[in-house]
């Protein structure tokens, strides 16, 4: 139901693949959006599945909601440590000369805990509410510029613009240069295969440029009165102000990366979902107060990060399977978010669910996304402003999707607006 499948007999073909040959790591499955059919099979036939051979080596797939929850909250056995491979299906530190920033998302306690504790207050909802009026105003300005009744690409003109704008606002980043933030976020997560950077050396160069830029901002802010932006907060908070610069940079990049792709793709994913479920769009139109419930549902539906990976520190049994010490284990949030045994009518987009936040997109346990309320706040403001201006954001062509097994991205979405 996610969308029309490009290849009409895909379902029959996928049903006939021997279960042990299924490899859900292939980025093309996400790009052509057949991945859901693979996960449906794994959940039904072999919810804890071992793939012996793939371009990222052997790995386990965990596909049911409850199993994912059990693993995600067992950080003593399932490690996030970068040196063991980190948090994504593709190992970190696997490429010579690639500059890897230290981020606490890829650390275990106790180091994880110290760093996370230091940064958490910066994204506390009480702080963010101070920024709401300016985010709302700037969102309105971007939306007011859009053409009515003409086809254009929603991703380029709206999703990227709004995301960049909110990031720049959160960091009080020099406004004219705000696209730098987007660029650095793309670069930080890019491997040369994606075409975003030419080589690992080129990537390194750009990230050093980014480091120097932020050093200047940090030095400025530390000498000014404290303000509400995240850099100023970190520069003045006793927990973070004496952080070694590289650690500060790692944490800062985590905030940028964490808020970039995820927000951008949720903005586009929401438009697509509403168009695929016209009854839900009608509900929204009749009652915009549903936006606060719709936002977590969009985040479930889109699942902007498809998975998180762990490395087993000891042998562990789950779902009748024996995971061995050292094994790579992938928790597929995208699959758990479609698990009927945990979420009613999981294959449908429903904007007024009773417990819309009961989804896996933010993960659970000590690594749960610390920006989760910030993400919801941004999306709520954006949808309120969209709703005020447009009676319909109509999708007029096929969406194009990102070639990635980690970021569930929409790269192009042709739309036409109807004014309210």
């Amino acid at each position: 139901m996610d969308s029309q499948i490009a290849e009409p007999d895909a379902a029959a073909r996928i049903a006939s693949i021997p279960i042990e040959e299924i490899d859900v790591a292939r980025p093309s499955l996400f790009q052509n959006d057949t991945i859901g059919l693979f996960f449906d099979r794994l959940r039904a036939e072999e919810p804890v599945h071992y793939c012996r051979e793939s371009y990222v080596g052997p790995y386990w797939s965990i596909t049911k909601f409850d199993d994912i929850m059990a693993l995600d909250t067992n950080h003593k056995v399932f490690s996030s440590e970068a040196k063991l491979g980190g948090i994504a299906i593709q190992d970190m530190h696997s490429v010579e000369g690639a500059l890897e920033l230290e981020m606490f998302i890829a650390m275990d306690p106790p180091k994880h805990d110290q760093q996370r504790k230091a940064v958490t207050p910066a994204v506390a909802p009480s702080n963010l509410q101070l920024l709401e009026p300016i985010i709302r105003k700037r969102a309105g300005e971007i939306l007011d510029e859009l053409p009515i009744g003409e086809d254009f690409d929603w991703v380029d003109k709206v999703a990227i613009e709004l995301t960049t704008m909110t990031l720049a606002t959160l960091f009080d980043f020099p406004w004219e240069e705000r696209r730098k933030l987007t660029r650095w976020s793309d670069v930080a997560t890019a491997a040369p295969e994606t075409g975003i950077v030419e080589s690992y050396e080129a990537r390194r160069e750009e990230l050093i440029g980014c480091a120097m830029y932020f050093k200047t901002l940090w030095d400025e802010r530390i000498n000014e009165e404290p303000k509400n932006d995240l850099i100023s907060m970190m520069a003045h908070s006793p927990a973070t102000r004496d952080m070694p610069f590289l650690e500060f940079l790692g944490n800062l990049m985590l905030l940028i990366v964490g808020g970039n792709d995820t927000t951008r793709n949720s903005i586009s994913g929401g438009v697509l979902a509403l168009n695929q479920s016209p009854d839900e769009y009608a509900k929204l139109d009749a009652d915009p107060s549903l936006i606060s419930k719709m936002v977590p549902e969009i985040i479930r539906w889109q699942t902007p990060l498809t998975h998180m990976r762990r490395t087993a520190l000891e042998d562990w049994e789950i779902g009748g399977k024996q995971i061995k010490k050292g094994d790579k284990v992938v928790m597929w949030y995208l699959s758990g978010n479609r698990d009927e045994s945990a979420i009613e009518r999981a294959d449908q987009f429903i904007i007024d669910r009773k417990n819309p936040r009961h989804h896996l997109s933010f993960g659970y346990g000590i690594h749960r996304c610390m920006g989760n309320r910030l993400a919801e706040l941004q999306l709520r403001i954006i949808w309120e402003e969209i709703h005020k201006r447009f009676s319909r954001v109509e999708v007029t062509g096929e969406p194009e999707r990102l070639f990635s097994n980690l970021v569930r991205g929409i790269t192009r979405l042709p739309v036409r607006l109807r004014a309210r």
Partner: protein
Amino acid sequence: MIKITFVASDGERREVEIEEGETAREAALYNDVPGIDGDCGGVCACATCHVHVDPEWIDKVGRLMHDGMEADLLQFAEGTTEYSRLACQIPMKPMLDGLVLHLPEQQY
């Protein structure tokens, strides 16, 4: 039925009832008490059911155990005190009849 009073950060009090064996999280959710989200479904995995136990009640409820998931999660919550607990980890029993729980200003 066991009574619990939730006190919002602005001082507003709500008295609700819950059956023995359910937790304080359910007491809030079933009665639409705002301020307890409980995203994870009550399995001690999200820390969105943070409460401050009234000091008078803390010994009956029990203090936070220092090693364990509940403490691991609460260390990242906003505004924790020595009376902080996760409501989903407070099972209701007759000795807690009349319990008073204070809601923090923010939940996330």
